[in-house]
């Protein structure tokens, strides 16, 4: 046994065969150097980095296509691209951002990296399955990228039939296969997390001592497991219909196109919480650390994660208020949507109360967290507008929806992702980034984001439909404003890509716990050893074990 002091308790079952080549205490980055040791690793931390690299690449593709879409919309008459090209651009943007960035983002990177560390385990329950899920993910991505290289898809990321099955002349099938395959990767990840959280907690790590990050990933995994099979089946039926004219959705073959919308949103609304819950988890780690205070209402936040994950299965119909659904169903979906939206939105009260009487450090992760709170609240509450039947009849499928889901998805996922990236960067890489650059990036992104998307609420209420390449001239001013904002936003995104990468080689070495944060992941060296713990981890008596009287001294780099 290389990491000598570890005793084999029941919660520390080692899924690896101990590898004698790994020296005592070698950190996971330097334990082995070959390419093979990365692509065939079963270390959850290395797999997390494989994911981090992949989803960063997809984010870049998504961002570039978004930039092109915004470029096209500077003029109202669609002179920049043909309609066809424009449609392909927004489709690729949506497909890549939703299926290949947002859904895997936080769980596959931070979830993979941190869950075992946070619960005091040496790895996930099924390390090989974990590696397999990355390969499955990349296989799916390959299919979807193939469809782009071959000529693109123009169905929108929602693939509504019969447009996608009978009328589109683009590369729909490879794109669909890609998305279907990626679903399996989610299922494998979810399964791995659930089993790990159930069976591999260190002695003393009871459910109510788990960090909220773990709770939210547990809830997210349940959605992965229960909802993903539905979209898998729906997409397979879609492929079958397009390829073999099996009549499921297309009325020309006796099918029902609204059935596809039901199946699609039965997955895709809960998927919203796949994106949002992990973000809440990240924020619930950052805020206490930078306020040096226990998370306010810990148990409520934990219960809320599970509660929201359950209720979110009952609101899919709010995407179909104007699609010929029964009025009774619409009313039911409307009120249920209120029941999910309000608790999500008011979670911010918990973070606010956590800050109260804390001892605040306004470093980059905290700035991202504060930006997150602002955007997420606006996104959540505009979701309520959409869930209000009479308002939905007007703003459905307009730019109001585009603004809403960007506030939720960028606010709720991307800002949390970036906040988490800065927060755990020292742990992951063993290096500090340059704080000033981090703060600038947080400001640029917050400002750029609002200039980009706030005008879209107005555009939507004025009646500009989404997915419009050519639009009436009275909408031009707001569109130019939005495109200008997206330029600022793009610069904001570029910043971290530069200074974080720079820090890998030139950054200051990071101490084990640069933020004075609580949680088992901060008790191990940065970067962590290959087997996570050199000594048996001891679970804290309470989660977020910050002193009752918040510390007033300055930050100590020990």
């Amino acid at each position, binding site marked *: 046994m290389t990491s000598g002091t570890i005793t084999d308790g029941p919660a520390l079952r080692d899924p690896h065969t101990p590898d004698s080549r790994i020296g005592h205490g070698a950190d996971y980055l330097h334990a082995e150097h070959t390419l093979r040791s990365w692509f065939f690793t079963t270390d959850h931390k290395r797999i997390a980095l494989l994911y981090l690299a992949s989803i960063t690449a997809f984010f870049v593709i998504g961002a570039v296509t978004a930039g092109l879409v915004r470029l096209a919309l500077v003029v109202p008459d669609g002179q920049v691209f043909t309609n066809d090209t424009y449609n392909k651009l927004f489709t690729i943007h949506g497909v890549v951002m939703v299926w290949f960035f947002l859904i895997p983002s936080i769980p596959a990177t931070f979830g993979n990296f941190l869950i075992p560390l946070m619960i005091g385990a040496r790895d996930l329950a099924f390390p090989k399955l974990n590696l397999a899920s990355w390969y499955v993910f990349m296989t799916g991505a390959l299919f979807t990228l193939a469809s782009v290289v071959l000529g693109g898809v123009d169905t929108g990321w929602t693939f509504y039939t019969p447009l996608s099955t009978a009328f589109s002349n683009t590369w729909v099938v490879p794109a669909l296969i890609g998305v279907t395959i990626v679903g399996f990767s989610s299922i494998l990840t979810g399964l791995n997390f659930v089993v790990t959280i159930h069976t591999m907690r260190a002695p003393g790590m009871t459910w109510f001592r788990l960090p909220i990050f773990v709770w939210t990933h547990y809830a997210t995994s349940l959605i992965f497991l229960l909802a993903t099979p539905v979209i898998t089946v729906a997409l397979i039926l879609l492929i079958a219909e397009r390829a073999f004219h099996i009549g499921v959705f297309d009325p020309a073959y006796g099918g029902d196109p609204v059935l596809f919308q039901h199946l699609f949103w039965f997955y895709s609304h809960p998927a919203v919480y796949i994106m949002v819950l992990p973000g809440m988890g990240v924020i619930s780690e950052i805020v206490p650390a930078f306020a040096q205070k226990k998370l*306010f209402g810990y148990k*409520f936040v934990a219960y809320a994660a599970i509660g929201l994950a359950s209720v979110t299965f009952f609101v899919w119909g709010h995407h179909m208020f104007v699609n*010929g659904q029964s009025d009774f169903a619409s009313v039911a979906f409307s009120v249920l949507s209120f029941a999910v939206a309000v608790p999500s*939105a008011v979670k911010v009260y918990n973070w606010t109360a956590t800050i109260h009487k804390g001892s*605040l450090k306004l470093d980059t992760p905290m700035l991202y967290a504060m930006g997150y709170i602002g955007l997420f609240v606006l996104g959540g509450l505009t979701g309520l507008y959409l869930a209000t039947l*009479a308002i939905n009849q007007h703003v459905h499928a307009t730019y109001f929806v585009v603004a809403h889901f960007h506030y939720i998805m960028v606010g709720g996922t991307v800002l949390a992702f970036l906040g988490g990236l800065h927060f755990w960067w020292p742990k992951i890489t063993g290096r500090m980034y340059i704080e000033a650059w981090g703060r600038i990036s947080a400001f640029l992104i917050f400002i750029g984001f609002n200039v980009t998307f706030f005008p879209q609420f107005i555009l939507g209420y004025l009646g500009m439909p989404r997915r419009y390449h050519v639009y009436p001239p009275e909408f031009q001013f707001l569109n130019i404003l939005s495109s200008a904002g997206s330029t600022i936003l793009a610069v904001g995104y570029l910043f971290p890509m530069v200074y974080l990468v720079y820090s890998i080689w030139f950054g200051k070495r990071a101490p084990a716990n640069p933020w004075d944060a609580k949680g088992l992941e901060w008790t191990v060296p940065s970067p962590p050893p290959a087997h996570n713990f050199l000594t048996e981890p001891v679970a804290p008596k309470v989660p977020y074990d910050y002193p009752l009287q918040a510390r007033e001294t300055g930050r100590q780099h020990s």
Partner: protein
Amino acid sequence: MNPTDLALQLWPAAASATAVETDWLILAFTVLTLLLTVPVFVAITWFAIRYRQGEEADRSHGNVRSVLIEISWMLIPFLLTLIFFVWGARLFFISKQVPGDAMVVEAIGRQWMWKFQHPTGQSEINDLHLPIGQPIKIRMISQDVIHNLYLPALRMQMATLPDRYTELWFKADRTGSYRLYCSEYCGTDHSKMDGTLTLMTQADYAAWLQNAGAQQGGQAGAGRVVYESYGCGACHDPGAKVRAPSLAGLYGREVRLADGRTVTADETYLRDKILNPNRQKLAADYKQVMPAFRNVIPPDDLDRLVSYLKSTGATAQQEAQP
């Protein structure tokens, strides 16, 4: 006439009482939103300054009883927002109860145009003229993919589905011209599937029906609409880019085919040519580029289309034989 000449519009025009009430609903909702969020934003900023590390501040925080606070701050906003659920649902229900005396307009969505047919038989493409002060029900269907008829000035929209009728109704009370759109993404020219909604007084509407733009009823008139909607003119009209024979005056004439035969362009020939253009029916000197419209043009539209082609034949023949 353009619906608006403003370079920058900040509030959409409202043409019905429902639209005005929807605006009130969203305004009131926004006020509540601000009440629920502004204090949080102010508090966060204030705390961030007040409790900044190194600042003097009272940081004693005992064991606050959080259960009561937690429940109340979830429940009170929920109950407050429920007011808006009820208000929105009420308006929605009203917009679903079609009055018995509503005038019925038929709408067909198809890639990428709207076709509207007035109760008196006239029809129009993309634009829609309607009277105010009269409940109007639009009964609609799609001929291909899902579309969505969106009338922002009335704060209304409804999907058109293939093979299934849907409807929406409204009673407008302000004349003027407004935009109408397709708001469900429907393929290449989705963003061009728009038009103008012109709301007029009852008298103006009646006069408009009599003389103005709308295609008069009758098979041939309706057939012209079909001809346009399938884009036949793109190849067959004079000056079209693709070289194809002109159809004006075709009916009744002799046509020389590519395989050397000669046939009379009778009704059977026209139908056959539309449905299977290339099955040994290629006209001499032309390339085989016309798409087959079998299973594309429904039978009743085909009747109208053939009637239209016959009518152009008749006029052309009359002109040709003095």
